[in-house]
């Protein structure tokens, strides 16, 4: 599995296309409903998946752990939401924590971890 992380609009999807050859139409993007198409070669918006888990009282790390065989050869994209002020709302605090724990778990499992910064790739693993 290859993990791409980075802040908003830093070129994460573009990198999945140019570096891993994933066509835009093959990228599954997580939305509010918390559904994941595990058959997709690239799953993006994992921070949104973490948000939907917070809303429904689920643990995103446990869900990913139980689907390990589904994503072990995928490209995963998780937005980095870790560097702002501690959010005032309890829900956003829980979101930030859930997204961070998911990202850290996946980074541990990943073959490669790439952080995008202003469209440039930084190899973290």
């Amino acid at each position, binding site marked *: 599995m290859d993990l791409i992380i980075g802040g*908003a609009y830093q070129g994460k999807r573009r990198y999945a296309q140019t570096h891993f050859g994933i066509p835009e139409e093959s990228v599954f993007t997580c939305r509010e409903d918390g559904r994941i198409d595990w058959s997709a070669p690239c799953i993006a918006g994992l921070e949104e998946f973490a948000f939907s888990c917070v809303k429904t009282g689920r643990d995103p790390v446990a869900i990913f752990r139980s689907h390990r065989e589904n994503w072990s050869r995928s490209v995963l994209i998780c937005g980095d*939401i870790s560097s702002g002020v501690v959010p005032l709302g309890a829900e956003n605090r829980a979101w930030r924590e859930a997204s961070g724990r998911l990202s850290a778990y996946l980074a541990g499992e990943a073959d490669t971890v790439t952080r995008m910064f202003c469209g440039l790739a930084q190899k973290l693993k």
Partner: protein
Amino acid sequence: MTVFISGGCKNGKSFLAQSAALRLSGGRNLYYVATMIPSDGEDRARIARHRADRAGLGFRTLELGRDVSRCLALAAPGATFLVDSVTALLLNEMFPGEQYAAPDPDAPRRCVDGLLRIAAEAGNAVFVSDYIYSDAARYDAFTENYRRDLASVDRALASACDTVLELCSGRATVHKGVWDI
């Protein structure tokens, strides 16, 4: 040489950018392109602080809140420009006059055109932007659009510049090119 510097607030971006511009210029033909248009006392105090920081370094200040590539015509050929900041420039270009109630959607393109022209034609150029993309917040549409547009200008500059640096606590991570200044 062209350098793009970004990173979080108060991490030493402006200070490093000044040292870089000074070294690149050899102390001659050196311009500080100030893009902030002050709107209150807080802004004016911030500008005074920045002016004091660079006093005696040999910068001539050009206040260009919009249409930033005018700096090329105002300086001698081969000049070194420090453009601080892309962030303020985009905000000013979004509201090009009093009559604009809504942001001008053409603003990011004007910023990119002007900044890339400086990168292509200046002797040396150093650009400073702000990394505002990694917080856990749901913004209103205006702020979210601003973030998206600033990121598009950042990416264009990072792609065009020789060297790209991310500053954290005064230390630079080199994302592109070489940095031995």
